[in-house]
């Protein structure tokens, strides 16, 4: 697969040896990697279809080093691509041929745990799960839980505004971070937020979260930690049609119940998962719903009964309530293994990530079935049903001529369909390079220009992670121009007091 990236700067490439030598001075020891063999692991992120060797890899250890590297690159006009653990599924950390790949893995310390204020201050290379592990002894955890949480870092989570299966109830990354230290492309170090709630002025942290590494490099993060719910129980419900499952989800939410997690799988996904982990999923159903209630045990016991009743009223053909923690985890095991399970039934799979208004699910599934026939590729669906986030897994074989291209075209059609029914291109994986060229299906040129001007406020030279998110690169000077003709009195027919 190839994707159009910004034209490499030949002048920069010509100076490579000198640039590497300077970077070695800024980050001494083993912090600069410049041989092809050692740079190989950095050539792609979780979206392995796209690969590109960087010009050089730099692994700084301190904020000062990050600042000096960025300042130098800013002065010299060198592009920089920040990278956490490299688990992005949208190519957010795809290197540039003429760019420095700035790996943040050495920022792996937990700096402070403050139970009194219910926060943790961590370096960006700490894994998502690492935060929860560090506070588990006191019964706390960090709420957002992307499936890659064992590997993905909190810095990457900030870049992507990562979610997880619990975000309907507990929010995404943006709802769970309180502060950060960020280095701008010119090397300036800023501190935003802290242990308190809300920002003093403009919500810059809200802009940075989900900006896909285009606005700055985060070097410290303050997150909220929560007390673990007293208990959690799950109900596994099978339905004869996806419409029934969708109606059940609506009824549950309509009854005022916000489950901790609510996941749906379609038949191909159920079968793939069951064959892989033997979670006891019913195989004769079209849709399977896992509804998890968490909280105080009195509440969970009460609500689980109500969910069970609603499910039976929604034509469920099988209803199973977890009776033990082991059983609850078994219910989840199949869902959590859905991606590798797809990998077992197909040589390759392409994971999509759109969000739709939940009521449109039956329509979207029907249209997807038609597309599946058209492209001659199978598709399995897992769905964060509570929040409408759909993950179709397109099954293909990269070794078969043309299948990858067809998978890509199929994926683009699915995402356009999501937008068409009132949804969005990406719920949690990010735009990156993958969905970059689809952005105009959701945003007008004016909308995109407004976003790019924010980019200009942070990085006027456009050196930080260019080629991601935005389909067109514009110079900031050009974006800044205003074309106002007028001076006409507004709506003269309206009384002015």
């Amino acid at each position: 697969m190839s994707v159009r990236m910004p034209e490499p700067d030949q002048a920069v490439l010509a100076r490579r040896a000198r640039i590497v030598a300077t970077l070695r001075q800024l980050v001494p020891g083993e912090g600069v990697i410049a041989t092809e063999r050692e740079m190989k692991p950095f050539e792609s992120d979780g979206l392995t279809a796209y690969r590109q060797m960087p010009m050089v890899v730099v692994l700084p250890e301190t904020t000062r080093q990050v600042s000096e590297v960025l300042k130098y690159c800013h002065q010299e006009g060198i592009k920089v691509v920040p990278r956490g653990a490299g688990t992005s599924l949208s190519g957010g950390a795809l290197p540039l041929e003429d760019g420095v790949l700035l790996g943040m893995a050495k920022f792996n310390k937990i700096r402070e745990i403050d139970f009194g204020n219910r926060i943790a201050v961590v370096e960006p290379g700490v894994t998502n799960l690492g935060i929860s592990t560090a506070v588990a002894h006191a019964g706390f955890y960090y709420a957002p839980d992307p499936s890659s949480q064992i590997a993905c870092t909190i810095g990457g989570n900030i870049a992507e505004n990562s979610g997880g299966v619990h975000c309907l109830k507990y929010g995404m990354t943006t709802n769970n971070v309180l502060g950060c230290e960020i280095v701008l492309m010119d090397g300036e170090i800023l501190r935003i937020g802290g242990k308190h709630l809300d920002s003093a002025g403009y919500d810059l942290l809200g802009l940075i979260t989900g900006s896909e590494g285009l606005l700055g490099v985060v070097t410290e993060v303050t997150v909220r930690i929560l007390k673990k719910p007293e208990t959690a129980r799950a109900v596994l419900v099978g339905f004869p049609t996806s419409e029934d499952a969708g109606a059940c989800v609506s009824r549950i939410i309509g009854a005022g119940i916000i489950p901790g997690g609510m996941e749906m799988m379609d038949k191909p996904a159920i079968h793939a998962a069951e064959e892989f982990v033997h979670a006891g999923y019913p195989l004769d159903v079209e849709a399977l719903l896992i509804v998890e209630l968490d909280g105080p045990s009195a509440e969970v016991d009460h609500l689980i009964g109500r969910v069970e009743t609603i499910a039976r009223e929604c034509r469920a053909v099988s209803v199973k309530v977890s009776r033990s923690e082991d059983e609850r985890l078994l219910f989840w095991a199949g869902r959590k293994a859905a991606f590798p399970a797809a990998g077992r039934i197909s040589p390759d799979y392409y994971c999509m990530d759109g969000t739709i208004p939940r009521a449109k699910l039956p329509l979207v599934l029907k249209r997807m079935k038609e597309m599946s026939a058209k492209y001659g590729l199978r598709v399995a669906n897992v769905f964060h049903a509570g929040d409408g986030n759909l993950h179709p897994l397109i099954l293909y074989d990269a070794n078969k001529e043309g299948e990858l291209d067809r998978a890509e075209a199929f994926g683009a059609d699915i995402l356009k369909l999501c937008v068409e029914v009132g949804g969005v291109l990406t719920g949690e994986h990010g735009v990156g390079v993958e969905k970059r060229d689809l952005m105009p299906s959701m945003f007008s040129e004016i909308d995109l220009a407004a976003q790019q001007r924010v980019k200009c406020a942070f990085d006027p030279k456009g050196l930080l992670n260019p080629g991601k998110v935005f389909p067109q690169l514009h110079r900031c000077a050009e974006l800044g121009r205003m074309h106002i003709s007028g001076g006409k009195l507004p709506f003269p027919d309206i009384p002015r007091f």
Partner: protein
Amino acid sequence: MTDQLKPRDARDVEEALRWAVAEEKPLALVGQGSKRQIGRPSQTDLTLDLSGLTGVTLYEPEELVLSAKAGTPIAEIEALLDKNNQQLAFEPADYGPVLGQPAAQGTLGGVVAANLSGPRRIKAGAARDHVLGVTAVTGRAETVKTGGRVVKNVTGYDLCKVLSGSWGTLAAMTEITIKVLPKPETEATVLVEGLTDADACAAMAAATATSADVSGAAHIPDHVASWFEGLPKADAATVFRLEGVAPSVAHRREQLAAHLKAFGRVTILEEAASRALWRDIRDVKAFAVPSARHRPLWRISTAPAGGHRLVDFITPAAQMFYDWAGGLVWVGMPYEDEADAGSVRTAVAELGGHATLIRAPAAVRAAVDVFQPEEPGVRALSRRVKESFDPKGVLNPGRMWAGV
């Protein structure tokens, strides 16, 4: 004399902005004007009145989503949600009475522009956490869409966040899509009597570190306790709200009461008293009463565990109470023409956080920083963000900071 433009729809707003930009004529943005006295006094005599943009344009209770024109009265939205057993979970405060205005005024756009959140902020998040999508006209007279109508969305920069709490200085919002949530079935409040501010902060930290799922934690010192409805007597009260289904609330109130016994005498406020009390806390009742209305009023967001240390920095004649488990401190200074900004800023510099002068005479608001002054680097970045949206400075210039 102040002049006023009152657009009928979003197209009119764009036209008004086009004219203002061409003429370089600054505009003061208002909805119903209920929060107009917050911020630095207006630097312009021309008002863009957005209260004509009204109406709920989409409400799908089962999708947990509502869209409305920015000028839609917040009371109308809350009434509609209430009919469907839903609510705005961030519990927007009504500052009307505190600002000497009628109660129950204000628009959705105003609530979002001010990022107004009530006691449930500690559990449910702020207004900004619930904004899913915005259509707005920037200071370039361009209509911009950001976000969407679905809860989970990371497509493009989250401009909803920076518009929330920007006090109309970046763009004139014309339509807003917001996440709505079910109303809790019932509530009760666990009350601990007679604690000092420091002990109260410790008790609030202890309660929020249990699985009791507290949706409000406040401390009302004895000198202001008599102003709050629902409190049994004029003694210090540290209060904890529990919301949810009846069996859960019943279970948790016992659990939490047992847990808090170590701090002091514990009593329970039943549903009606609990509701009245938290409404008063939300609306800052202690400083809306006639005897306190002259007091310059500060809203200070700080690290909750250290909130009580504010008293070390400010005059003993100040009145105060704590929300957000100690992380939101309301301070009323004794003299009308003296905001005592120096001591507040010193305290915030020491304890972290930010302070906003919510109420003071215009002359005072013109003379001191109303919003927290930012560090030079952040200030410069904020200024660049402002310029990216509003290069000619026609939208609420100077409302947050001089020159921005």
